[in-house]
């Protein structure tokens, strides 16, 4: 159904030609982000939700909580599972069907940043050790793809989590296990770390942030870093065919860290509303 994305050689050269002059086709400089907008509590039927736009890229994330059993090897931890759908609604280049590699990567990279930063204390999601825990589903749908999905996805997921409210659970009896969900008594999900992901994209010898779809498509390589609010690196993923030298990685991680601070400001602003 979807066609392959084709970008003409002349357009490719034009983008590279502009980069040489520290310029981009839409007038930004290399490190500049497009306008970010975050709207939380978009879906009332979800426990938490957020729509994030970075330029024309738009992603919605929704959180659903259900009670279930923990994994046998972590009996006193709740579970979070992340999924992403690159719906053909969002781009003529996305296809219907089960999640393709790129949707899986998007979900897993987002999941990694949130999980590894311990943004959520999973032990607090445990109700009866070994038997009953909250399972949090972080589900994302891309609504319009104009590049830089990774940064938008983490931002949307974190904003949705930070506005999530989960009902209290009353234990009526332990043996046999009987519980009641107190739908009226909602508790905000506690966020321990405000994780932000920043991706650097490499086109030729130039590194840029927040590419639009064309820049995203012609980029040779990218690295997505996750940072917590104490400026620690919590996750990393290199993607695409291109390569980086060790020096480049060291420079890029610092530049990304800088950018993460302004992204976190946007996040905090949106969730404190």
């Amino acid at each position, binding site marked *: *159904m979807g*066609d392959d994305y*084709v970008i003409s050689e002349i357009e490719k050269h034009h983008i590279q030609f502009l980069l040489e002059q520290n310029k981009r086709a839409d007038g930004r400089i290399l490190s500049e982000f497009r306008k970010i907008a975050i709207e939380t509590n*978009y*879906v*009332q*039927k*979800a*426990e938490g*939700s957020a729509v994030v736009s970075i330029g*024309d890229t738009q992603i*919605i994330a*929704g*959180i*659903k909580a*259900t009670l279930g059993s923990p994994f046998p090897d972590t009996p006193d931890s709740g579970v979070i599972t992340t*999924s992403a*759908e690159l*719906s*053909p*609604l*969002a*781009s*003529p280049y996305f296809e*219907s069907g*089960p999640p393709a590699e790129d949707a899986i990567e998007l979900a897993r990279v987002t999941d990694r940043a949130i999980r590894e930063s311990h943004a959520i204390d999973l032990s607090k999601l445990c109700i009866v050790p070994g038997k009953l825990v909250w399972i949090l*589903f972080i*589900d994302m*749908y891309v*609504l*319009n*793809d*104009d590049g830089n999905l990774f940064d938008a996805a983490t931002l949307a997921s974190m904003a949705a989590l930070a506005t999530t409210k989960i009902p209290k659970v009353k234990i009526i009896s332990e043996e046999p296990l009987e519980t009641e969900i107190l739908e009226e008594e909602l508790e905000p999900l506690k966020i321990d770390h405000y994780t932000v992901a920043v991706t650097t994209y490499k086109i030729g010898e130039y590194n840029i942030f927040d590419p639009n779809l064309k820049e995203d498509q012609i980029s040779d390589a990218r690295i997505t870093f996750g940072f917590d609010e104490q400026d620690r690196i919590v996750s990393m993923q290199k993607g695409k065919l291109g390569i980086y030298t060790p020096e480049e990685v060291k420079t890029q991680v610092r530049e990304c860290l800088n950018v993460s601070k302004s992204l976190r400001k946007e996040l905090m602003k949106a969730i404190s509303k």
Partner: protein
Amino acid sequence: MAGDGTVQLIDEKGKRVDGRLKDELRPTEIKIGVVKNADGSAEIRMGKNIIIAAVYGPRELHPKHRALPDRALIQCFYRMSTFSVNDRKSPAPSRREKEISMLLSDALTSVVLTDKYPRTTIDIYIQVIQADGGTRCASLTAASVALADAGVPMRGIIAAVASGLANDIVVLDLFDLEDQKGSGDMPLGYCPTLNEISLLQLDGVFTLEQFDECLDLSIEGAKRLYDIQTNTLKQRYADIRAEVAVDEDDEVKEELKEQLNDEVKEELIEQLKEEPKKEEVKEEPKKEEVKEEPKKEEVKEEPKKEEPKKGDE
């Protein structure tokens, strides 16, 4: 799906659980052009329903053997987000989603001039962001507007709404609770200018009288929705017309825009005033709209030509 009628859905004064009267639609708002990548798109908010429809095409069909030699294939893909309902929906497509997709495709095929684009497909992707009952109807309403936004030539625009039974009383535009606990549900897709029903389903138990009343009520509701659809489209065309008036200097452009906006707004306000009244008064202005329809198509074509169409690649 129909409930047993034990829940009180309508009180003695004829007020429903959400405060509406029996012949009242939920507040409905349509936004056009919400998906930038699409050739046409619309978002509908009807009560708590939030639904996005995006149109891609006419474009090449894969696999090719499914292409029709004499007309375009209309393919609707209705999907619900996992978080759109109270209990998380499994992300895999359900049988329900597949059936609705088919029904919507068939309904829309009846109005699109498919013979203009042989061997192509026109894909309509529908994503339910939040479900509040009557999503298939709201989807069809939004999809029709999205197709018009894409400049796809159509014989008419379909408006859709479900009526049903709340404690054995016929009510318009069922919301979630009425859908689940009411004793009957009749989704209807209708094009007022053609007087054609293109989507019709029913579940529950109706007497013949209730059936007739339900059908009449839905058609009245669809007419009101149709006005919202056409007014939203007119507003959109007015905006585009002002935008593409490149020959004029900025001042004239602004003036034109305001003037057009005012015209549409006035009409909208008048319509809203009329809404609670009975519908006889409204028959006249409607005939005018029918005549205007082909004109609107033309206006739409212009801006589309300015930029290269994604579907053409």
